């Protein structure tokens, strides 16, 4: 209840009738202004989420039309755990997150600290490292596909020149396809991590560093004793959002490997795509969608719980 209410009351006290009609008009206006967004989100986000829960208990091949829907209880979820491709996808998702998130955060925080504290032309470096992040993932994927070419690509030519006679075949190599995609992903999101860390660092009061300098603290001590602890919330935020985004990786995999060779680079969202939009098994794809949704909820709640415990200590 702000000054606004008081102003409104005093303005309307002369005429109670206008006050009430104004209030009613505001009520009405509120709903009109919020309506498009709320209707859109309920219709295109909440309703689909709940529908996919219902669908996840059915067997339905879209090709058969609406009449082909058949409830099959928890069969889809039972099948998930017997589906080698889904289990591989799950494993790849975990590897992917574990291999990209901590590493980019570590490199990101170090580069951000150096850019923030030591470098001239900060904007230049921010922009330079951020460029891959704003580029079309598909266009970037096309570039890396050429770089990764097994026999003629510059990367393997370099490796062979360095004396590695039999370099990995990267995207077409079952043992390296996922790693090759992780490398592109790391390259793409590093700039994002740097930007978020820099935003966090710019909120740390300069006086703290001044005081530390007077006490004779070295740059590394300042980083460990001031920057790191005060970046706690930023780091926490980045850890959650980056983990969640890495769970959703799809574009690179669809464009570069279609999950292959032999499912070696498949991930959950790719499996959802394959089951739902190539095989039209809508029920099974919905069960996978819910598995993904629950995993994301789990990550969020675990991180929130550990975080709140830390705050209480």
């Amino acid at each position, binding site marked *: 209840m*702000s000054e*606004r209410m008081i102003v*409104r009351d005093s303005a309307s006290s002369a005429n109670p009738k206008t006050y009430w009609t104004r209030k009613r008009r*505001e009520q009405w*206006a*509120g709903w009109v*202004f*919020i309506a*498009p*967004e709320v209707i859109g*989100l309920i219709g*295109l*986000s*909440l309703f*689909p*989420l709940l*529908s*996919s829960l219902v669908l996840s208990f059915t067997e339905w091949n*879209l090709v058969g039309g609406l009449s082909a829907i058949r409830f099959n209880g928890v069969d889809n979820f039972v099948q998930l755990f017997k589906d080698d491709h889904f289990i591989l996808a799950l494993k790849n998702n975990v590897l992917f997150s574990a291999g990209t998130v901590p590493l980019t955060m570590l490199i990101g925080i170090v580069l951000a600290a150096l850019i923030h*504290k030591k*470098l001239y*032309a900060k904007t230049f*470096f921010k*922009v330079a490292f*951020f460029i*891959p992040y*704003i*580029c*079309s*993932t*598909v*266009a*970037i994927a*096309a*570039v890396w596909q*050429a770089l990764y*070419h097994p026999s003629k690509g*510059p990367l393997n*030519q370099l490796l062979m020149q360095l004396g590695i006679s039999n370099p990995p075949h990267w995207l077409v190599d079952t043992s390296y396809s996922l790693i090759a995609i992780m490398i592109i992903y790391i390259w793409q999101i590093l700039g*994002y991590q740097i*930007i*978020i860390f*820099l935003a966090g660092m710019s909120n740390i009061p300069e006086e703290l*560093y001044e005081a530390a300098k007077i006490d004779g603290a070295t740059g590394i001590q300042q980083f460990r004793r001031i920057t790191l602890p005060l970046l706690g919330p930023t780091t926490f935020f*980045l850890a959650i*959002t980056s983990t*969640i*985004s890495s769970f*959703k990786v799809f*574009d690179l995999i669809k*464009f570069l490997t279609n999950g292959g060779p032999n499912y070696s680079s498949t991930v959950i969202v790719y499996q*959802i*795509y394959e089951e*739902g939009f190539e095989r039209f098994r809508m029920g099974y*794809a*919905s069960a996978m*969608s819910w598995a*993904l*949704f629950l995993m*994301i909820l789990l990550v969020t709640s675990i991180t929130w719980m550990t975080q709140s415990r830390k705050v209480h200590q």
Partner: protein
Amino acid sequence: MSLTRIKPSNVILTVLFAVLSVFFLLPLFWMLSASAKTERDVWTFPIQWIPKEWNLIANFKAVWMGDVSFGLFYMNSIKIAVISTLATILISSMAGYALSKLEFKGRAFVFSLMLAFMMIPEQATLVPRYIMIKEAGLYDTHAALILMGIFSSYFSFLLRQFMASIHDDMLEAAELDGAGFFRVFWNIMLPLSKPILATVGIIKFIWTWNDYQGPLIMLTSTKLFTIPLGMQFFQEEFGTRIAVMMMASVAAIIPLLALFLALQKQVIQGIAIGGVKG
């Protein structure tokens, strides 16, 4: 930090970083140089960073003047990105205005609903949305893509936060002059929210321009393809012609890169305040 006097160690570090960032961007330099080469020279090793034999015009023609021109994909992408961005700004700022400045029954509930909506991953709703679009007869239309992209609890939240910081005095003054809620919204809220509208607009534009998953699921006719789908089309068509592919990549990246370099402050700020993608 203000660097008042020049420290030699920092100068050296800056130079090292400059070298590092050139290395970091090498894949993009490779793309640029390959887009101007003949197919034979693309693979020459050590890499010819400056092409010996220029083939820029032929590659350009293959991308822009072939049977299927990249220009078509461009027009589709521009159309979808512009309409989606404008609609998102309008819908989200209306919601932001209602949630920050209008008192109505259920506002607190709607606000928490919006926060909860931010948790729903798009990928978990793909299947039903695809079915809905098919049932509505919108499959393989641009309308489907636009409709899927214009409702965002995230942007509404950002706009709500910004608008809540606008002083009520200005709105009061307008109201005393007899302006209704629509005039207040249009003539006062929107102009005062310009900085955040610019940020939201550019970020939404970038996401829409780069979106691959949405068009992949909703479109099937080549003539409707956006740039990322066009890239896939080219890959299937010219997969082995790397120089042509690199020319297409350059074409896909350049407009956004130019936009980003021109508005880097807004983009970086926008990413930093929200920091959630997708």
